[in-house]
């Protein structure tokens, strides 16, 4: 692909493209192939929930492509489908690039024929042509172009074939005048369309659309077209003609539902076109997907298999993840020493070594765990298994008042709550969506993983820690279901929404796609550690080191001078550090809020760590790193895990983990939640709901753990 830099933007030709297609046909992947963009790609409906623009240059033209959420038809069934429909109807663009899945052409062409009625220039990309070939589907794209009156190009976004030809076709269509696409309807409809068009022509009616398109819109009862024409005088005589036309079509179709009639018309057209242009060279046997489905969504085995996969994921997260941790820890120790040696100024050294390096190091330590978790989620997303789980779980979810498709945002929530909140848009019904939004927080996000790994590592032996980790996630999810049931019975009463969902084909995960997603997300995590977490660590360092205690220090330095043995010197030094910390700003804050957390068995350090977690959950770990590093740093290098084990009673750790599982998500996620829920009042509901639940359950968990 040539990416020439254009000298003069004024002489450049801009082509504005709207990218439209049914869900999961590879629109975002196609954009990535064309322009080296890095849009998120998955194998289920509804990955793209917001429109998103990508720019690039090709052969002297400046392209801008708007990637629109996938839509089955131009209606407003879900929020994101509404985005697409309103963009197509009212935004400014030069042409529509309609992406279709070659392996299910007939269904895709139904949307294509609807798009062709919009009166815009259209180019059709027959995507996944490589897969179609493998399945023995032969498409005569030249004949297809001729039948539709619209240029169709075979491409494969995954294999990057046909891309240049597609771009050339777009340019060609852009440079030429709009040619009317060829739609053929049933005899009755054609006859009535002709009558209406002749009437419009005879009365010299003109609008932005050609009269043939207006005729279609009128027969479809399209509100915009009716509104536009109803002010004209010719409308008076047109009305009886329209009424008669509708009656004729309705009798012909034996249905009084115009929408159904039109859908059938489009489908019939698509069927006709496919019959002419598509040849199946292989006889249909049981496909790979169907064979796999007999096991994976088996009525009895399906759910146990799913649970096994999840268990395996968390085992791996802990087992493999813990291998490089020692090295990373040692590395940060070395960096701390090396950097510390370079800085002469005492306070600055403390800020850099004990504040920034300790804080960031504590977060970066968990990179291996995070990577494994992200790989697991990426596999789930890209293989098509996600929709199967939605299928399996709908029965259970339904009992708890959730929708089967809630599973998709909920699983995304194990990675990060922010995309999870956004993907809740695939839920059509507002109540279902709000309910799901409230529950997403119960799915522990990747940023909470470090806290869990830290505590399970501190209190459990290596061989059960993975199971404990799995249990934490499962218990979180079950609590989420129970909370959903309670909310459904109280705040979100209402009728149940239908569950109709496409099951995508299984695809082998592509190494490139997975690594791309995982690297992207890991990089984001690292970036956050380097910026936000570093800043937060500095703040925590400052709050824990100031105000300085000259009197206290003097007292101790006298005692230390008088001390007899080396041991008592170390002990005194630790005592000094402990007391200064307690008198620091952070200590003051902690002491102030301690009474609230005392019934839960949390001391002021844990209480403070929880507060800093409101900014970001990783900060919990870095705060603990700073708070517990103090005093002990000289004797035990390996580190926070040991410090936690020595300083925190088991029962307190349990209640701490329970709070982490349930309480308010981080600041960024809370903001997205508020936006998606549609108002600040929902944020306060969430705050109240999560805080009360967390406090109540932590209290119980603490009591129970004390009995053990």
């Amino acid at each position, binding site marked *: 692909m040539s990416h020439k830099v254009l000298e003069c933007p004024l002489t450049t030709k801009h082509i504005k493209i709207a990218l439209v297609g049914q869900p999961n046909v590879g629109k975002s992947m196609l954009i990535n192939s064309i322009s080296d963009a890095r849009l998120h790609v998955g194998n289920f409906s509804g990955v793209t929930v917001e429109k998103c623009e990508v720019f690039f240059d090709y052969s002297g033209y400046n392209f801008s492509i708007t990637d629109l959420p996938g839509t089955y038809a131009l209606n407003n069934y879900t929020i994101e489908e509404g985005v697409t429909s309103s963009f197509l109807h009212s935004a400014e663009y030069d042409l529509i690039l309609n992406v279709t899945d070659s392996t299910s052409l007939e269904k895709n062409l139904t949307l294509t024929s609807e798009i062709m009625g919009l009166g815009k220039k259209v180019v059709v990309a027959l995507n996944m042509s490589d897969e179609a070939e493998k399945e023995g589907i032969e498409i005569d794209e030249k004949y297809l172009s001729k039948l539709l009156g619209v240029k169709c190009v075979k491409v494969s976004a995954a294999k990057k074939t046909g891309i240049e030809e597609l771009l050339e076709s777009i340019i060609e269509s852009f440079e030429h005048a709009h040619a009317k696409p060829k739609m053929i309807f049933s005899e009755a409809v054609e006859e009535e369309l002709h009558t209406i068009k002749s009437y419009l022509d005879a009365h010299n009616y003109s609008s932005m659309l050609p009269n043939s398109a207006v005729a279609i819109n009128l027969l479809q009862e399209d509100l915009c077209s009716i509104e536009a024409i109803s002010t004209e005088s010719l409308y008076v005589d047109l009305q009886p003609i329209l009424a008669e036309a509708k009656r004729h079509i309705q009798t012909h179709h034996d249905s009084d539902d115009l*929408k*159904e009639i039109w859908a059938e018309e489009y489908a019939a057209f698509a069927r006709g076109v496919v019959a002419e242009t598509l040849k199946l060279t292989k006889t249909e046997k049981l496909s790979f997907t169907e064979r796999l489905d*007999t096991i994976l969504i088996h009525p009895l085995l399906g759910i146990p298999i799913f649970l096994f996969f999840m268990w395996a994921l968390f085992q791996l997260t802990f087992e493999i993840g813990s291998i490089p941790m020692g090295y990373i820890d040692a590395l940060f120790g070395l960096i701390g020493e090396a950097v510390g040696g370079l800085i002469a100024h005492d306070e600055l050294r403390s800020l850099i070594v004990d504040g920034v390096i300790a804080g960031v190091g504590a977060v970066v330590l968990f990179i291996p765990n995070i990577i494994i978790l992200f790989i697991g989620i990426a596999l789930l997303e890209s293989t098509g298994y996600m929709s199967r789980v939605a299928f399996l779980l*709908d029965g259970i979810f339904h009992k708890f008042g959730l929708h089967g498709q809630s599973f998709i945002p909920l699983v995304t929530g194990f990675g990060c709550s922010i995309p999870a909140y956004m993907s809740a848009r695939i839920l059509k019904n507002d109540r279902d969506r709000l309910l799901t939004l409230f529950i997403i927080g119960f799915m522990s996000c990747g940023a909470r993983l470090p806290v869990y790994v830290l505590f399970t590592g501190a209190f459990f032996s290596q061989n059960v820690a993975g199971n404990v980790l799995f249990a934490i996630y499962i218990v979180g999810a079950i609590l989420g279901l129970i909370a959903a049931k309670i909310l459904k019975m109280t705040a979100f009463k209402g009728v149940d929404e239908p569950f*109709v969902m496409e099951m995508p084909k299984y695809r082998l995960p592509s190494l490139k796609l997975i690594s791309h997603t995982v690297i992207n997300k890991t990089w984001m995590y690292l970036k956050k550690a380097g910026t936000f977490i570093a800043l937060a660590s500095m703040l925590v360092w400052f709050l824990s080191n100031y105000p300085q205690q000259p009197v206290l220090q003097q007292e101790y330095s006298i005692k230390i001078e008088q001390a007899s043995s080396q041991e008592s010197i170390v002990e005194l030094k630790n005592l000094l550090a402990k007391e200064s910390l307690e008198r620091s700003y952070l200590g003051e804050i902690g002491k102030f809020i301690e009474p609230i957390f005392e019934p839960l068995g949390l001391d002021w350090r844990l209480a403070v760590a929880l507060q800093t977690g409101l900014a970001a959950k990783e900060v919990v770990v870095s705060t603990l790193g700073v708070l517990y590093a103090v005093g002990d740093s000289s004797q035990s290098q390996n580190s926070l895990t040991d410090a936690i084990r020595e300083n925190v009673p088991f029962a307190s750790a349990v209640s701490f983990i329970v709070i982490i599982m349930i309480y308010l998500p981080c600041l960024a996620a809370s903001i997205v939640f508020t936006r998606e829920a549609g108002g600040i009042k929902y944020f306060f509901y969430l705050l109240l709901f999560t805080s009360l639940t967390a406090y109540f359950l932590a209290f119980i968990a603490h009591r129970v753990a004390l009995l053990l």
Partner: protein
Amino acid sequence: MKTLIDCDRGDIVTIKRLHTAGELKQRLISFGLMRGAKVKVLEFAPAKKTIEIKVNSTRVALRGDEAALIEVIDES
């Protein structure tokens, strides 16, 4: 009246009528579930809570309650 929920695994049937209106009907239609469409029943979840079917080359999952709204006739 026979509906999709009354079918067995592996049955191939033709849709006769959709006993629903409005959005759900449009949704079903946009998946290809319309009068005259041939449907193959692929899989049931326990207690027929959910059902997986194939229409054209598309696999669609439906809840049992929705499947009960789709009247079908046997392929002759």
